Every structure is written in structure tokens, then in C-alpha cells.
């Protein structure tokens, strides 16, 4: 995270809801937010990979974030949005129910992920931040899009 002096204490996150829970992702990784459009399913893809869509000529895979965390697939709704995010040179889309806000917090407000039982959660959530009525989970994009075992084949 390339911080200037000013931003040294403040980090910015985009928060959104998926599967009824609040997640957030470093704003530096977010490229744009698009409305949902139909995707082309991929054969032999894991459950959370909905398919691929066309982003100005690039073929990008769309992950259902809720499904990725073992929740039910996000029900189809016109309100659904796709968060286009970049991890290294890889561009992916995350299907979420709604984007909530941009959160600017000091580094010290991020707490380590408490010891939860779910493997998925431990591997893909780097921390939690308390917000007004609850908390938001900071996700590790790399871990989210990493092909899992047999799914990679």
C-alpha cells in the first residue's frame, strides 16, 4: 500500500453487502463498479464462479462473493452490482448485493480476524473494522480469487 504521509494513518475501503453481511476491500484495488449484466457460464467452474463477462473487450470472471463465503448464491436482482477489482495484473468482478460507502479509517481501527472456525473465512478475511451498527470484513482479494484445489483443473 503506497501511502503518502497524509494517508499514513488513514486507509480507505469500499464497503458492500453480500449475503446480508458487510465486506470491504481496499479502495486501491477497486477499478470500477458496474451494474449487473448476464454472464457466460464456464464449464467445470466452482460454485462461486458465475461465469465470464465482457469488460470493454477483456474477458473477466465474475465471482459471487456470498457463494465464495459459503452463503447462498446472491439472488438475481436489478440492484445487484459488480465490483471490478484488480489483483496484480488479474482483473475480476465480484457480484455483491449493494455497495454501501467508502470507509476511511485509521490503521489502528482494523482488528485482526478473531479465531473463527470457518477455513474460508480465516483464509480470506484479513481483518474486521467496527462500524456504526456492527462490523465490516476486510477481504483479501488474492485469496478470494485463488483457484481452489480441484476447481483449478
Amino acid at each position, binding site marked *: 500500500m503506497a501511502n503518502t504521509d497524509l494517508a499514513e494513518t488513514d486507509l480507505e475501503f469500499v464497503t458492500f453487502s453480500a449475503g446480508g453481511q458487510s465486506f470491504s476491500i481496499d479502495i486501491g484495488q477497486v477499478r470500477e463498479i458496474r451494474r449487473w449484466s448476464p454472464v457466460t457460464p*464456464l464449464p*467445470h467452474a466452482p460454485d462461486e464462479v458465475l461465469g*465470464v463477462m465482457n469488460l470493454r473487450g477483456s474477458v473477466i470472471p465474475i465471482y459471487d462473493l456470498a457463494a465464495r463465503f459459503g452463503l447462498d448464491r446472491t439472488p438475481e436482482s436489478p440492484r445487484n452490482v459488480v465490483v471490478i477489482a484488480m489483483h496484480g495484473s488479474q482483473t475480476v468482478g465480484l457480484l455483491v448485493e449493494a455497495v454501501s460507502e467508502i470507509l476511511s479509517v485509521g490503521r489502528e481501527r482494523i482488528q485482526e480476524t478473531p479465531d473463527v472456525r470457518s477455513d474460508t473465512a480465516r483464509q480470506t478475511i484479513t481483518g474486521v473494522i467496527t462500524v456504526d451498527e456492527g462490523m465490516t470484513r476486510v477481504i483479501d482479494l488474492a485469496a478470494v480469487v485463488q483457484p481452489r484445489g480441484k476447481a483449478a483443473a
Partner: protein
Amino acid sequence: MAPQSSIRDTFFEECEDLLEALAEGLAAMAGGARDTDTVNAVFRAVHSVKGGAGAFALTDLVAFAHRFETVLDGVRSGTLDLTPEVMHTMQRSADHLADLVEAARNEDVLPPDVSEAFLANLDQCLGAEPESLDMGDTPFDFAVIPLEFGDDPAPKEPAGYVIRFRPLQQLYANGHDPALLIAAVHALGPCEVALDLSALPDWDGPDALTPGLGWTLRLTTQESETVLQEIFEFVEGLCSLDISPLEDAPVPADPLPSPAASPSPPPGPEAPPAAASAAPKSDPAAGAESAEARGPKPTLRVDLDRVDRLINSVGELIINQAMIAQRLQDMALASDDDVSLHVEDYRLLARDIQEAVMAIRAQPVKPLFQRMSRILREAAEATGKSARLVTFGENTEVDKTVIERLADPLTHMIRNAVDHGLEGPDARRAAGKDGTGTIRLGAAHRSGSVIITIRDDGAGLNRPRILDIARRKGLVAPDADLADAEIDGLLFLPGFSTASAVSNLSGRGVGLDVVRNAVTALGGRISIASVPGQGTEFTISLPLTLAVMDGMVVSVAGQTMVVPITSILETIRPAPGDLHRVGTDDSLLSIRGRFIPTVDVARSLGFTDPSARADFPLLLLVEGENQSQCALVVDAVHDQRQVVIKGLDSNYGQVPGVSAATVLGDGQIALILDPDAIAAHRAGPAATAAPRPPLFHADVHHGQH
């Protein structure tokens, strides 16, 4: 260090061009061309390599190029007859020169005895002719070469010049060195240099800064005056210079301010003498112009990544245009609506841009073909056969990547053609043919593809022997009855090699199957035709570019997908009786008396949506690796179109059964299927479950995996 190495890189890039010109010129000479232009071009190429190599102190290269150049000079001046032996030596020397350049580029050293052998060959050509050029000056040589005009009449008048050269103060101030200039003159031929001290200033005088040295050079050369003047081009205005033909000599050195011959003030001291002495010859400016007209067209070396980025963007532009056009169509505007007309213009422009951009990646196959003539020479030498290569359509342009990836298969096929295709000289004569075999290598564009043909005029395929070998190796069932074309096709099976003795060249077990795989990987096809006694012809058909592909648009389980046209043999709508169930899942298609396995694409991809199942499925007969055929079951076939290939790997990863994706006109993504992988997927588990019974002809499925 860095600038030096980048100049070095430039030198090697130029060497590639020069070696290409050399090979081309020699090929023309071997074909009978004896005109001055051709010989000069060859000479220039070697000379330029030598000059550049000198600058980088590549001594092996310089030494060899120098000797080579001496032979060429003999040919050029007519003192050396261009016998076939000399011609052969020169071609082999050109090959060796290329090796030396390659070695120098990799900072390798070739074993000295190899060079010795080639040098000895060259010496043999020269006979007793002595070395005439002075080696010491070569590092400066290369400044001279490009300026040597093929059309100048100099070779006919072996003459010389008297050059009176007196640097002004500014010349030294600008960092020029008279010694280098003199060395450059010296490189043109034997030269007498006399120092003229007559203008040395009085040591006690006030003007000790004024240079007082002058030189008079008496040069014997065949070069034109233009060449001489070019040497002094960089010091124009910085010296007083007078060049006059040797006949006008003897001229004693003039005292310094020589008002008549050399106007010393800067505005072009060279102009008057040039105008005066160049009158009987061609005007230097005109000479330069004509050289430019004949020389290579100006080019630009561009990083390939930049071109690819541009190609990608243009691909998107095309898709974007298609999407706009489709939206407009949906809006049902009047066809003469302004917007529709503009969008039509947009479409045409976008196509133009696409073609122009694709043309950047396209390169003529000529360098590739030229490399093959070397392969042929080496193969002929190794097998003791006599062969010549005739190429046509060298200017056919193909995508750069295709050319690069075609080099290995083509090399293999040329070797094959010499080794297996052509008969020995005696057998040829016995058959009433020329003792020297001809291998024709050609390229042509045909309906969006590039066709490359390799034809030999040898004995043709020995079909009984091929069949015999295939049977012995268990590639076909002993009782299989194969048509001629099917027998020919056996050559492409893995592990097939007809050479009874394993020769140095081909026949190391790597056979035509490797060639075939390389061609298939490029989205192409290869076929073979042979007439006994007359020869064999291989035809490779390749797509023009790798970024675009011809595809058949089909639906599978409600999804639109694309199948590469190159792998489709035919589409079949089976009659009810044509499909035969085997077990619970498999079915076989009977076609023309044979049974072909079918693969349900939807099931193979894991799309099992029975509601989307069409009542009357279509079959696509595809041919996979090892020429095994299978029929893909799809729901419907829509149309054929060119699609832009988009990789899935960068953002996602590999998907089994899918080679890439493309964007359709409506902006939706369609997957491009990989029929080979789908067919293999079928073969995999089924084959391990139980050995497949030889239900159908034994010719196709015995390829070892």
C-alpha cells in the same frame, strides 16, 4: 556500457538484414544473374558486415568477411570466373558468415578449424591471388559502405585520385581526426600519403593555433569520386579539400590558402570542386537520390508489445462498432438515417484500421525461405544428393508468430524431402530425370489462408512399404484395407519413420507427427499428395493471423459457443438409424460404413440442462490429433464468422475443453471450444475403464498417447 551494447544490438539487427540481402543476392547469382547490381549488392552486404564487425573488434568475423570479400571482389572485377564450384563455396561461406555473426552475437567462439576450412575453400577459389587489401583500417570501413553506388561506372575505369586535404582549426576543435579520414581513404585502395608541411606557421608568429599540416593522398581505386567525397562529408567546411582524378596529377602541394582549388570559408568548400570534377560523372546528389530510390524502404523497428497492444485495442474497436450497430438495428431507425450512415462509415474505417494493424505484424516469408535454402544445402551435402531449392511467393506475408513457429516444421520437411523424397543422383538419371533434384517451396494467399507447399520431384511415396511398416509397428490392423490417401496419412502417425537406416538428418523417430502438431497448434492443416515417380507434395494451410480465427457458431445447452472451422470436417444431421447406442451413455455414428464415437458437448462441459436439449441434435465431425475422428453433438449451428480470440488465462485460468473466448456482436462472451480436448476427455476415462474394442477401422486410434 549500455549505449555500447545498444549499438551492438543495432549492429546485429542490421546484420540480419545484410545476411538476408547476401543470401538473396547469392541465390540470384546461382540462378544466373551476373549483373553489376546483384554482385555489388552481395559485395556490399559482406563489406558492411565486416565494417561493423571491425568496430566491435570481432576479429574472427572480420577476418572471414575480409577473405570472403576478396573472393567477391574477384568476381566483381571479372578476374574470377563464377564456376559452380566458386558459387557453391560462396553460398557455404555465406552460411558460415551467418554462423559467425550468430556466434558473435551470443559471444561464442566457433571452433577455429571450422573457419579454417572455409577460409581454405575461399583461398582455393582465389587460386594464387594474393591478399590485396590492408586489414588495419577496417574499423573505419563501415562509414564508407552504404555510399557505394552500384550504378557508378567506376569499375570500368580503374583510376585514382589526388586528394589534397588540409584541416582547418575547426576540424580539430570538433574532435575529428585526420588519421581516421586518411585511413578511410586508404581502405579504398593503395594510397600514397605525403605530408605537406609547407604551411606550417612560423613558430614565432602570433598565430600558433592555426593548424599547419596538410596531406596529399594519391589513391588508386575503382571507387567513384562520390565515395571519396562521402568520406569527407562529415568534415565539410572544416577543411580545405580538393579531389581531382589521378590523370591530372602530378600536382605539387599547394601553399596553404589555396585560393583556386579550395575556398576555405565554411560555406561548402566542397561544392565547387565537386561540381567541377563530378561533371563527367553523375552528379553526387543525383547519385544519392537514385541510391535512395533503390535502397530499402525506410522502416521502423517497433517493440512487438506495442503492436500487440494496438491490435488488442483495434479488436475492441471492432466489437464496440458491432455493438453500436446492433443497438441501432434494434432501434429500427430508417436505413437512411444519418446515424446509420455514420455507423456504416465507422464500420468501414474500423475494418481499414484492423487490416492496417494486422499488416504491421505480417512479414514476408522470404527470410524463412532463405533459411531453408541453407537447410537444403546441408541436407544435400550430408546425404550425398544433389538438390536445388526453387522458391516462389516469397513476398507472401504471414503473421510474425506464424513465421517463427513455422521454422522448425519447415526445416524438418525440407530435410525430409531431401533425405526421403529425392532419389540419389544415379537413381534419378536411371529414371530419366535430371541428376539434381528440385524442391519447390512456395507460399500463396488463398481465401483468407496462407498456403505453403513443399514439393519434391523424387520417387513419390512408396505406399506398399509405408503400409508394411505401419503393419509391423502395429499402427494398422494386419487386414486393414486402406485407400492411397489413408496410407499417405499414416506418415503423420507418431513414431512412424520410413528411413530404414537412421540417418543423421531425419529419422530420429521425430517424424511428421511433430510437424503436424506444430501446424495444428497454429490453427492450420497439413495434407500430403504423391504421384509415384513424380514426387510428393505437402500442403500446409495456415490462418493469416493468430488473433482472429474462423469459427462456426453453435449452441450447446442454451449457450452460444464457437468451434474452430479448421477442425471441422463436416456437419451431419443424423437420420434416426445412424446413431447406435453402446452401453448406457455412449453412442456411435455410422457414416459411410464406419463407426465414429460421438461426444455430447454439453455433458462433456458439465452443462446438463435437459430442458435445453434439442430434439434433433446436429453432429460436427471433427478430426483431432492423430487423425482420430469423432462427432461432437451440438444443439444447433448458426453461422460461420471470424472471431477475435480472447484468452481466458490472464484473468481466470485454463478451462478444460475450452481454448479461449470471444466477444459476439451483442457484447456477450462466447467460449471457443477445443475439440481435441473434448475428444480426449472422452477417450481418457473410457479408455482406462476398458480397452476399446476394434469396432471401427484400425487405422485411426492406435496412436500412442
